């Protein structure tokens, strides 16, 4: 990694802009992991790979809604950007099947704030 200096600092910021769409974030703090986030992360990664989809599966911290962990945020082009809660491996497969491939919001796991 190159060291940041006074002069290249702002450039570094602009260089690291994130992908706008086609990603999934899994909340992986202690509480999320306790509720099964790691299994969900693995399932999503495998399923996306198996279907050869160009979707990034990202790890992130705690979204705060511990009562409905594990939480998965899904941002796919052409489908509403939503958060799913109480996601188990079955729901994770559902996200890939219905939300990503079917381009339709999945029932019964939506968390809207």
């Amino acid at each position, binding site marked *: 990694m190159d060291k940041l200096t006074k002069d290249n600092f702002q450039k570094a910021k602009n260089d690291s802009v994130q992908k706008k769409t086609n990603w999934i974030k899994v909340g992986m703090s202690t509480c999320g992991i306790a509720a099964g986030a790691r299994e969900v992360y693995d399932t999503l990664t495998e399923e996306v790979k198996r279907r050869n989809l160009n979707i990034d599966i990202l790890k992130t911290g705690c979204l*705060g809604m511990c009562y*409905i962990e594990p939480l998965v945020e899904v941002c796919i082009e052409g489908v509403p950007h939503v958060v799913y809660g109480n996601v188990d491996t079955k729901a994770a497969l559902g996200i890939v099947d219905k939300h990503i491939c079917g381009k339709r919001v999945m029932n019964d796991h939506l*968390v809207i704030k």
Partner: protein
Amino acid sequence: MYRKTIFIKDTDSQGLDRTKEFYNKFLENLRSRNLQNDIQVARAADIGIYNQGIVLRVYGEDTIYVQLKETDIDNIISLTIEKNEIISSLQYKKKDKQLRRVLRNCGVINPDCIEDYLANGGYQGLYKVLTSLKPEEVIKELKISGLRGRGGGGFPTWMKWDFALKTESDQKYIICNGDEGDPGAYMDRSVLEGDPHSVIEGMIIAGYTIGASKGYFYIRAEYPLAIERIQNAIDQAYSKGLIGEKILNSGFNFDLSIRLGAGAFVCGEETALIASIEGKRGTPLPRPPYPSVKGLWSKPTVINNVETLANVAYIFIRGAKEFAKLGTETSKGTKVFALTGKVKNSGLIEVPMGTTLREIVFDVGGGVLDNKNIKAVQTGGPSGGVIPAQYLDTPVDYENLSKLGSIMGSGGMIVMDETDCMVDIAKFYLGFCVEESCGKCAPCRIGGSQMLDILTRISKGQAQNHDLETLSRISFAMQKASLCGLGQTAPNPVVSTLKHFLPEYKEHTENKRCPAGKCLDLLSYKIIDEKCKRCGACVRICPVSAISGNREHGYSIDTQKCTKCGQCISVCKFKAISKE
């Protein structure tokens, strides 16, 4: 691609969940208009609004309808969906006041990736400070922001920094207190795990300001993931040159490393924490001298809590004035709470200072679990107090909470319902402090265990009214005479429950009754003959054979043998066993 997305959910938790029926009717109506490929409708698990009947929200719009009936569907589709007209009689204004500043990056960025933090504006505050501000100017900004310590006491952060800046020394230190000891609070853990760089950024700014070239994270060993992520973040910051020598071409050098706590609540106290970093027993020292003057290895040291430092980063990224826009006269900004206990939506919340407890519990938290009545809210953990339900409309800030006999604390907020006994709660917290007392000073060591003894007798029905006076007297002595914050605040849960729930204490002492049905020794189990269907399930499950009788003559419980384990109650399908 759908033109519109509609979310629905039945938020009335009493009775049956009608979401599915409503969903089916909605879908049916869409089909009859041949809109099913145009408009999608989805059932939500949590729609962000609570106890408002069937709720409907339109994705990407502010439209929220509540208390819906199936007869409303036709109108909603014809007007709102087809013509974009609002039906004002159904409309609802969302009251949830959550606002994420400290938690701005938690759940947004990848905590193991410094590029993510940079892309979201991270380290811009540090850049501003190092390239354009003198230490005195940093303190001036901080003063404008009005930031006060989020660890409990609420001491103005700028003052702490100013003391340390003005104390001449060859070496100074900055410590991040991540020894979150309040049982029932985990705000700091979430920030450390979800946004480690914002805390690091705050620390480097603090280091630059007071002239410290060394910083320590003091983190509970019980938080392995937080430790791992902070270590990783420190390594990344080093390799980016944001920690180390001549940061961003300035003359400022800063080193940062982690020290682990080892399970001692008293180490949340500044002087004890310092002793622990020095590798010693975590026993506190009398203050003054304050750590800002004489701290770690007798050098000036600033100790800030995790949330405080995350706020520092925000202040220098977004500006002190922006920060101070939120909050009350004396308490600026937001506060993160770990909202737990008997609340529906347990979790981590962040609200502006001045939000009322009612808004927090009902609008954000969704109300009390199982729709029981709320009895009190506890804040501040073992050093705090309980706030009874009649004060729920109090805006939360440092002063208001202390007027009610509690404290802001680090952010534990525990909701209690009518089945929670206040004597039991006081005993729980005091028991915690007695176990965690380091034993150095007598008021805390002896006072605590004497009080616990009295509370235990109260809960067993062996105490008299004069014991309550003794409790108050010992509390006063401990508050005045203890050496450190632990002992001084340990009686708070007792004092505040005595203040607000004296009749409940008196029920225990005078009538030997526990109104909440919690204190086991004051309860006795009884079979209600009229309700008993004589199935014998309780006889079979009782582990101590305390239930006898037969199908013909009914059953009874031998209170001498009964251990009050409650198994008979849970197995009885007819609610025929009472405890009181």
